[in-house]
């Protein structure tokens, strides 16, 4: 059976048509797989079905096969295979499963087969194919994605580019003369031109609409949210780590919808009560302060360079069990002296990341504590925090249990105290300007105007704060609430439009990020230093265990903090309650109440582990004994009895065999034998070790992960999630393509310059003649007078005839130099020396500049010059 296409053409088709189409196929299947369960997330295999169908068909139809008959054979194949599967597989479910798999295979393979046939044979196929793919994409998008401008652009842009590309390239390949020389050269030249045009076009679009696209990019790519299981345009207030645990995020965006889970994150005991000593005063647990706002992406971000940094952010997983970390500089930085006290909080982590530290502001102390044995299954780790807490602070602000007299009195009392602050004149200028910074856009002027309007009657900062709260709670002229809480507020149609303005003036629906963000700028526009705090909101639901709070995923929250000189930062939550899902309170369970008294904590490196005797020998570098810390430079050896100990890591309980030589561990003991073995003032680590029984029984061993391993892990994650700067990539590609084009056009001239210089500056007589002859040949060739198969004399005569030059004389002398043993006569030598420059001048005079210029752009001539004829070998 004869061939229709040459191998050259088949290769061009495979590389330029089949490969990109396979890539699009993979992308589309990957996309579709995340929505349709029947596909079972096997996109790689399915993509291969499609690609192999296409590749096989392209090769197959390069031969003279008819489509109808071959397709009929293919379908016969399918039919037989289907029957075989039906007979071979046992059980209803298996049969169903196998036949579904086979159906998917046959559909995709056939699709690929048809595509391959189309690429190979049909001229108009690519048009129909593009339309088909676009239609398919429309169906997929309309069924799976919220239809808005952004979604459509990012869903269809690649397909449109593909459609242009495939139609253009297919036509290009079809019209090529595959017999002619330079087939691939021709092809690459065209592709280069096409790439240039497309990239220039995209670059133009990207540059003009950069702001919009950046916003889209931020919204669609770049952040981890994109890889959420739900995959859509939604935001979470927390992020899920690799190990499945949760953390707060160090940035907050305003998006079309908020995704909230219902799982328990942590449990905390907070020793903060109102003056009566009984009623618990809940406080919000803070993870981060968002002091910065990125106007381009409309994202609230943390800023490590914020003035008077008062964020204490230790990593509890790095602190050996029962050891503490303190940073009292944060207390100084808050500048709060009035109505402050130290409050304790114990946090028991469930889903919360081991490295996460949450505490009401202003925390300055973190001690890791053990989880009581009975609760080890439930809580992974725990720590105790100490805070420098304001008496005037409370979670109660917008959530005000109505009719609670005591609370109302408390609110009145604290507001009246705060009213003493009438302005912020005495504040450090840098501090004040940092915390009252507003972007200069018109969008924010509108917010400022609103702020002025609603706080017209308020004199003091706290009154303004109250006015803003009341504005969010106010009712419109129909008696309906002006603002509503919504997890799915939607976003403005234009990606770069201000979401805050959309929230404040049009939509008036939103979740905490919107309320906090709006409040922040309303406050800042009034010159009130404020910032956003992120963490968890605290709800007092339990009357059984006062001071115990339960934190679920949907309690991840953001609110505003206002700075009052002397009183420090005070929390104000302006997010109005969700009327639809009004606090469907979750059952609180029993808190881990029975705390044990720890007598000995040894921190150090494992020397060896005896899993049979359940003993561990370790080098202790830090020791806590009856709450007193001993440390030594030269580690002391200690034998511990681990027969009763629970061994744990950051992520959960493990067996003793997980403890390996060289690991960093902390061993804690609650053993009664140690209770009365008190240490005296003179004791050091060695003397204590002498006192205590050997081996000392321990109840808890905690393995502390090495820093490097963690860092490496983190780095990997960072590297993966680094968003691609498309604009830069495009620029680089464009420059590369332009450089290529330039090289293509400039190379004939560059080569000529090199040859010309050599011709003029060679001293050796023979070499000079050669260089001159070569330069002349190249020059004439580039001007379109190729030597082709003419002999030197024939060619020289042809040129002389054309230009009236003396090339033949020179050529003859050159031939003599080259092939004769005789030496040149003086006359001939003179001729060689004086021939070159006048000759080039003469040619130059007779060929117009325009012609010369255009001919020197023509790389075909250059290729022709350097091209070596090849013989067709048997």
């Amino acid at each position, binding site marked *: 059976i004869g061939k229709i296409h040459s191998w050259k053409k088949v290769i061009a088709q495979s590389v330029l048509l089949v490969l990109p189409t396979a890539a699009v196929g993979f992308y589309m299947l990957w996309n579709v797989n995340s929505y349709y369960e029947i596909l079972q997330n096997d996109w790689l295999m399915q993509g291969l079905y499609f690609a192999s169908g296409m590749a096989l068909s392209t090769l197959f139809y390069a031969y003279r096969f008819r489509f109808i008959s071959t397709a009929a054979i293919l379908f016969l194949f399918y039919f037989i295979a289907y029957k075989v599967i039906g007979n071979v597989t046992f059980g209803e479910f298996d049969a169903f499963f196998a036949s579904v798999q086979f159906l998917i295979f046959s559909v995709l393979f056939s699709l690929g087969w048809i595509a391959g046939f189309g690429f190979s044979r049909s001229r108009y196929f690519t048009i129909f194919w593009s339309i088909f793919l676009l239609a398919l994409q429309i169906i997929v998008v309309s069924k799976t994605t919220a239809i808005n401008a952004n979604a459509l652009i990012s869903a269809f842009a690649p397909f449109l580019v593909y459609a242009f590309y495939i139609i253009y390239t297919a036509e290009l390949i079809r019209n090529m003369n595959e017999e002619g020389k330079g087939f691939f050269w021709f092809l690459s030249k065209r592709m280069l031109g096409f790439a240039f045009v497309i990239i220039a076009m995209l670059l133009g679009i990207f540059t003009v609409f950069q702001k919009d696209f950046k916003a889209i990019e931020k919204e669609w790519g770049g952040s981890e949210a994109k890889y959420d299981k739900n995959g859509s345009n939604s935001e979470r207030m927390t992020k899920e780590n690799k190990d499945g645990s949760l953390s707060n995020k160090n940035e907050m965006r305003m998006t079309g919808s908020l995704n909230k889970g219902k799982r328990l994150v942590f449990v905390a005991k907070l020793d903060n009560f109102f003056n009566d000593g009984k009623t618990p005063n809940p406080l919000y647990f803070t993870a981060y302060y968002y002091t910065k706002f990125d106007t381009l992406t409309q994202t609230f971000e943390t800023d490590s360079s914020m003035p008077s940094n008062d964020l204490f952010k230790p990593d509890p997983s790095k602190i050996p069990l029962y050891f503490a970390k303190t940073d009292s500089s944060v207390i100084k930085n808050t500048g709060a002296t009035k109505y402050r006290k130290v409050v304790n909080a114990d946090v028991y982590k469930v889903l919360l990341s081991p490295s996460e530290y949450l505490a009401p502001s202003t925390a300055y102390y973190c001690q890791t504590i053990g989880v009581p044995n009975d609760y080890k299954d439930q809580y992974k780790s725990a720590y105790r925090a100490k805070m420098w807490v304001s008496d005037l602070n409370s979670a109660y602000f917008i959530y005000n249990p109505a009719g609670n007299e005591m609370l109302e009195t408390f609110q009145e009392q604290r507001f009246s105290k705060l009213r003493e602050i009438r302005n912020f004149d005495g504040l450090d200028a840098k501090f004040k300007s940092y915390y009252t910074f507003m972007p200069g856009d018109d969008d924010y002027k509108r917010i400022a105007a609103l702020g002025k309007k609603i706080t017209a009657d308020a004199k003091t900062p706290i009154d303004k704060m109250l006015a803003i709260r009341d504005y969010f709670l106010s009712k419109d002229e129909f008696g309906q609430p002006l603002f509503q809480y919504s997890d799915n507020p939607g976003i403005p149609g234009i990606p770069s439009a201000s979401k805050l303005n959309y929230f404040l003036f049009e939509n008036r629906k939103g979740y905490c990020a919107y309320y906090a963000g709006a409040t922040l700028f309303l406050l800042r526009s009034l010159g009130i230093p404020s910032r956003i705090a992120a963490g968890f909101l605290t709800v007092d639901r339990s009357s059984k265990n006062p001071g115990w709070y339960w934190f679920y995923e949907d309690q991840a929250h953001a609110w505003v903090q206002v700075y009052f000189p002397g009183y420090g930062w005070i929390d104000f939550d302006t997010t109005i309650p969700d009327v639809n899902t009004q606090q469907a309170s979750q059952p609180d369970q029993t808190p881990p109440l029975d705390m044990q008294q720890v007598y000995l904590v040894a921190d150090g490196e494992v020397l060896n582990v005896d899993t049979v005797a359940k003993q561990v020998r370790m080098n202790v570098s830090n020791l806590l004994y009856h709450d007193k810390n001993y440390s030594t430079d030269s580690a002391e050896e200690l034998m511990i009895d681990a027969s009763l100990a629970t061994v744990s890591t950051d992520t959960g309980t493990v067996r003793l065999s997980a403890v390996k030589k060289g690991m960093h561990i902390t061993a804690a003991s609650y053993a009664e034998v140690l209770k009365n073995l008190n240490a005296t003032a003179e004791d050091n680590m060695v003397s204590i070790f002498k006192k205590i029984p050997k081996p000392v029984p321990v109840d808890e061993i905690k393995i502390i992960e090495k820093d490097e391993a963690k860092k490496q892990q983190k780095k990997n994650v960072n590297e993966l999630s680094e968003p691609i700067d498309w604009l830069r990539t495009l620029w680089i590609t464009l420059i590369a393509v332009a450089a290529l084009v330039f090289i293509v056009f400039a190379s004939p001239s560059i080569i000529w310059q090199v040859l010309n210089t050599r011709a003029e500056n060679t001293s050796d007589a*023979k070499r000079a003649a050669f260089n001159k002859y*070569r330069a002349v040949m190249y020059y004439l060739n580039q001007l379109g007078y190729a030597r082709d198969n003419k002999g030197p004399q024939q060619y020289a005569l042809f040129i002389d005839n054309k230009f009236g030059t003396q090339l033949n004389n020179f050529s003859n002398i050159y031939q003599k130099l080259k*092939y004769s043993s005789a030496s040149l006569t003086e006359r001939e030598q003179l001729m060689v020396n004086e021939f070159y420059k006048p000759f080039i001048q003469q040619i130059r005079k007779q060929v117009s500049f325009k012609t010369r210029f255009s001919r020197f752009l023509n790389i075909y001539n250059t290729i022709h010059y350097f091209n070596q004829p090849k013989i067709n*070998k048997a």
Partner: protein
Amino acid sequence: MIETVQIDQALTNIQKLTANIETVIRGKRMQIQFILTALLAKGHILMEDNPGTGKTVMAKTLAQSISGGDGEHGVNFKRIQFTPDLLPMDLIGSHIFDDVQKEFIFKKGPLFCNVLLADEINRASPKVQSALLECMAEHQITMGDVTYPLEKLFFTIATQNPVEMEGTYPLPAAQLDRFFLKIHFGYVDEETELNIYKDYLGIQSNLEHVQQVLSMEEILFLQDEAEKVYMHDEIIAAVRNIVWDTRKHADIVLGASTRSGITFLKCLKAFALVNGRTFVTEDDPQNITSAVLDHRLIYRNKEAKQKALANILDKELNRLSKLKIGG
């Protein structure tokens, strides 16, 4: 050490000869050059073309331009019209009984001449053809016990008619090999043709009174000089490459032999001398490769005949033209 060619004298002689022939044969400089090349290379030439293009006149003029021993007439010129009934004897000669001497004496045939025109060689039977070609190759004739050497200057111009192929015996490749060159005589260009018509009487009288410009000795001298033409190693390499490529080329069934290569070298030298040079240049293979090699090769098809050799030559000339010289 190769003796230097006495170029001035050789050149004068060649120019004289060429000019003399051109008084009769107009607009055929290239063909005249080829014929002289074959003559100087001590070879023979096969001309192929339609009747009436001047092949016979050409041979005749050449013979008459060279003076024989007597100084009056040209060298011994014989013409044989080949026909299917021609016998080898008719060429070589035969033993006949001499009544006076009472013994058989050898009556020399037309082959014992200086310039032989073998017209329409493909019309004779293979027997005759091979007899002729043997003589051409060995320069002698053996009859019985006696070997008769041919003349020192023995030059055959054979012609072949490409039309009317019925009843002909095309020469086999091995025999074609004996001809150094095979050329197409071809028609003259329009202008020359017009000139010929205007002056046909003059040409006629020129033919009848061709001057004898060179002696046979001078021709033999030129033949010796041709051997001395300088040949650069690269040209020899080029000849080797061309010969090898004809063997490797996909469209050539039978490539050139080593003997062809040697012939090629001889022809190149002679051609260079004919063109007034004492050394071979790129132009020489460019001009004569086709004449020397084309008839020795067997091609796969007609299309290949037009392309293959040109392709090989093109490649080799490309290589030569880009050779670097000097330090």
